[in-house]
C-alpha cells in the first residue's frame, strides 16, 4: 500500500498548504461586520470547472495509485511471470505524446484567438488519441495471439486491467473533446471555447503522465527505482 500512502501524503501536503491560507486560526466569534463591509471568502479566482477538473484528477490519481499498490503487492507472489511488453506500446506512447502536444498547441492558439489553429489542434489531438486506443487494442491482440491471455497469469491480468482503465479514462476525455470540437465547428466564439480547450489539454497531459508511470510499471523500468526506495526505507 506504499504507493497510495505516498499519494495521500502528497494530497495531504496540498490540502495542508491550502488550509494554511484559510485563516483557520481566526476567531470568528469576535468578527462582526458593519453593513456593506465583509471579508473575502478566500475562493480561488479560477473558474469552477477548472477546480472541478482538479478534484477529479485527484480522484483518478487515487484510483491509479491504488492499482499500482495492488500491482506491487501482487507481483511479489511466487506465481508472477512478467509478460513481454509488445513493441507496439512504444509507438502508442509516441502517439499519445503527439496527442498531448496537439492539444497544448490548440490551447496556446486559443489564447492567441487563432480559431483555425484551434480546430487543427483539436482534430489532430482527437485523431491521435483514437490512434492510441486502436494501437492499444492491437497490443492486446498481439499478446493474446502469443498466448498471454487475461487469466493465464496475474501479470497479464494486471496488464489488461490497467491498460483498459487508462483507455476508458481517455475515452471519457474524447467525449469532452468531441463536445468541444462540435462547439467550435458550430462557430462558437473564442471566449466560449477557450476554457473547454484548456481543460481538455490539462486532462490529456494528466493521462499522458499516468500512462508514462504505468508504462514504467508494466515494463519493469521502475523496479530499480522501487528497490532503491525500499532500501532507503528499511
Amino acid at each position, binding site marked *: 500500500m506504499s504507493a497510495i500512502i505516498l499519494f495521500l501524503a502528497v494530497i495531504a501536503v496540498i490540502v495542508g498548504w491550502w488550509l494554511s491560507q484559510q485563516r483557520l486560526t481566526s476567531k470568528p466569534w469576535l468578527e462582526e461586520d458593519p*453593513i456593506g463591509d465583509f471579508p*473575502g471568502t478566500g475562493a480561488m479566482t479560477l473558474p469552477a470547472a477548472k477546480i472541478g477538473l482538479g478534484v477529479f484528477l485527484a480522484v483518478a490519481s487515487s484510483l491509479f495509485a491504488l492499482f499500482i499498490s495492488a500491482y506491487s503487492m501482487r507481483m511479489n507472489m511466487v506465481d*508472477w511471470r512478467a509478460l513481454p511488453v509488445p513493441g507496439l506500446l512504444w509507438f502508442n506512447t509516441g502517439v499519445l505524446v503527439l496527442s498531448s502536444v496537439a492539444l497544448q498547441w490548440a490551447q496556446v492558439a486559443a489564447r492567441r484567438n487563432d480559431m483555425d489553429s484551434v480546430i487543427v489542434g483539436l482534430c489532430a489531438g482527437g485523431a491521435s488519441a483514437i490512434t492510441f486506443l486502436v494501437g492499444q487494442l492491437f497490443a492486446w491482440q498481439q499478446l493474446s495471439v502469443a498466448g498471454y491471455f487475461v*487469466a493465464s497469469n496475474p501479470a497479464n491480468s494486471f496488464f489488461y486491467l490497467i491498460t483498459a482503465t487508462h483507455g476508458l479514462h481517455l475515452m471519457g476525455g474524447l467525449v469532452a473533446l468531441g463536445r468541444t470540437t462540435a462547439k467550435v465547428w458550430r462557430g462558437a466564439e473564442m471566449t466560449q471555447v477557450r476554457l473547454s480547450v484548456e481543460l481538455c489539454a490539462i486532462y490529456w497531459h494528466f493521462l499522458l503522465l499516468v500512462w508514462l508511470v504505468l508504462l514504467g510499471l508494466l515494463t519493469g523500468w521502475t523496479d530499480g527505482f522501487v528497490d532503491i526506495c525500499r532500501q532507503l526505507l528499511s
Partner: protein
Amino acid sequence: MVDVPYDAIADAPPAEVAEVELYHPKSWWTHYVFSQDAKVIAIQYSLTASAIGLVALVLSWLMRLQLGFPGTFSFIDANQYLQFITMHGMIMVIYLLTALFLGGFGNYLIPLMVGARDMVFPYVNMLSYWVYLLAVVVLASTFFVPGGPTGAGWTLYPPQAILSGTPGQDWGIILMLVSLILFIIGFTMGGLNYVVTVLQARTRGMTLMRMPLTVWGIFTATVMALLAFPALFVASVMMLFDRTLGTSFFMPALVEMGQQMKYSGGSPILFQHLFWFFGHPEVYIVALPAFGIVSDLISTHARKNIFGYRMMVWAIVGIGALSFVVWAHHMYVSGMHPQFGFFFATTTLIIAIPTAIKVYNWVLTLWRGDIHLTVPMLFALGFIITFVNGGLTGLFLGNVVVDVPLSDTMFVVAHFHMVMGVAPIMVVLGAIYHWYPKVTGRMLDDWLGKFHFWVTFLGAYLIFFPMHYLGLLGIPRRYHDIGEVAFIPPSAHQLNAFITVVALTVGFAQMVFLFNLVWSLFKGRPSGGNPWRATTLEWQTPETPPGHGNWGKELPVVYRWAYDYSVPGAAQDFIPQNQPRGATQAVHGAAS
C-alpha cells in the same frame, strides 16, 4: 494557487445573476423527475435511500426472528440468513447512510448554508442521482435473480465470496459488485459538486471559518470519500475479474469439491487491504457529517454558541486525515506482522483525542445553556450518549490483545451498531425533525416525535447493550443457529429472544415516524420560515420551502459566524448570519 491581488468583491459570486444563468425547469418532468435543482435531488436521494433502508430494516427483523427463536421460522434457512446479513450491512452502510448524509443532506444543506443558488454543476448533480438509483435497482434486483443475493458478508471477503458454498455465487455477487461500481461512479459525480460548491460558491462574507459545522462535516467527509471510494472500486473491479474472467488477483490455489480450481496464487489479504482502506474512512465518512449536524442541533436548541468552534473544525480535519492510516485495525486476526498491529493500534487510539475534543465541546456547549428539549435536541443528546458508549468499546477493540478474543463475536456487532448504526441514525432522525419545516413548511408532530425518540433510544440500548455481554460470553457473530453449546448458558438464549422482541418494537416505532412524515406533510402545523429561531442562512430564505434559486433576487451577505445565540444586549436570543453590526444592540465580542 494564484498571485492575483485579493479582492473580496471580485472573488465572491455576484449578488444578482442574469436569468439565463439559472437552470429553469420547463416541464413537470424536469421540475420533479429529471431535475437539476439540488433541493429536489436531495429529496430524491433521501427517499430512495430511505426506501432501500426499509428493506434492510425488514432484513434485520428476519435475522432477529431467527436468532431469538431458532428453528421456529422454517422459511429462514442458513443460506438466507447469510444473505440477510450481507444485504442488511451493505445497504445500511453504503446505500442508506452514505447516500443520505452526502446525497441527501449534502445536496439540500450545502447550497443553502453557504448562500449559493445551487450546486456548481447541476447537470452532473442530476446524473449522480440517476446513477445512484441505477445502483440501488441493480442491488435490489439480486433478490430476484437465480440463487438470490450474495451471502458473503458485507465485507465480501474472497475466496469464500465467489466459491460455490456461498449463497448468491451465480448472479448475486456479480450484481453486487456491479452495483458498488455504479454507486462509486454516481457518488464521484455528486462529490465533485459538494466540494467545488463549498470551495467556490460561498456567498459574500462567508469565510471558511464562518461556515456552520454541518458544512464542514459534509465537506470533509466528501473529500475523504472521493479519495477512499476508489479503493472499493479497484477491489470490486478486480474481484469481478476473478469471478467472471477467472483471473487470480485475490483467489489462491484451492481445491473445491475435490476439484483443483483454475485459480492460483492470489492474495485474499490484498483484498482485505483494499477493502479496509476504503472501509475505515467510510466509518468517518458517515460520522463526520453526523458530528457537524449534531453540533448545529445542540447549539440551536441550547440557545448557546458552540463551544470551541475552531477546535471543532480542526478536529474534523484531523479525524479525516487520521482515518486513512488506521485501516489495518480491521485485520488484526489476518495473520499480519505484530509490529503492524502495534502501529495500527497506536494510530487508532490517537483518533480518540480529536474525537474526545468534540465530545467535550458538545457537553460544554450544553453546560449552562438554555436547553429546549425539542425532538431534534433529544435525538442530539441521544447521539452523544450513544457515540460515547460505542467509542469506548472501540478502545477495547482497537487493542490487538483484546481484539483477538473478541473478534468475530457479538461484541463487535454491538460495538459497530452503537457507534456506526445507532449514533448516526440518531443524528439523521434529529436532523429530519430539525429541517423538515424548511423542506415542507410544516412542523412534524411533537408528541409522535417524542414517542418515536423514546422508543428508539431506549430500545436501541435494550437491543445492543446485552449484545456486549453475549459477545463476552463468546457467542460468535454470523451464525445462523448457535445451538446447544456448553459455554453458552440458557439465559443467553432468553436474552436473544428478549432482544428480538425489542427489535421488533423499535421497528414499529419507525412506522410511527413514517406516518408522522406523511401526515405532517398535509396536516402539520405551519412552521413559518424560521421555527427554531436559528442563525444559519438556510432559515433566512425569502420563501419556505426555498424557491428556485434559493434566494430570490439577491444573494444574502454574511456578516458574522453561525453561532450568535444569546448574545448579551441583543434584541433577540439569536442574530442571523446575514445581519450586520449595528442592526442590533449586540455588544461586540461579549458572547465570548
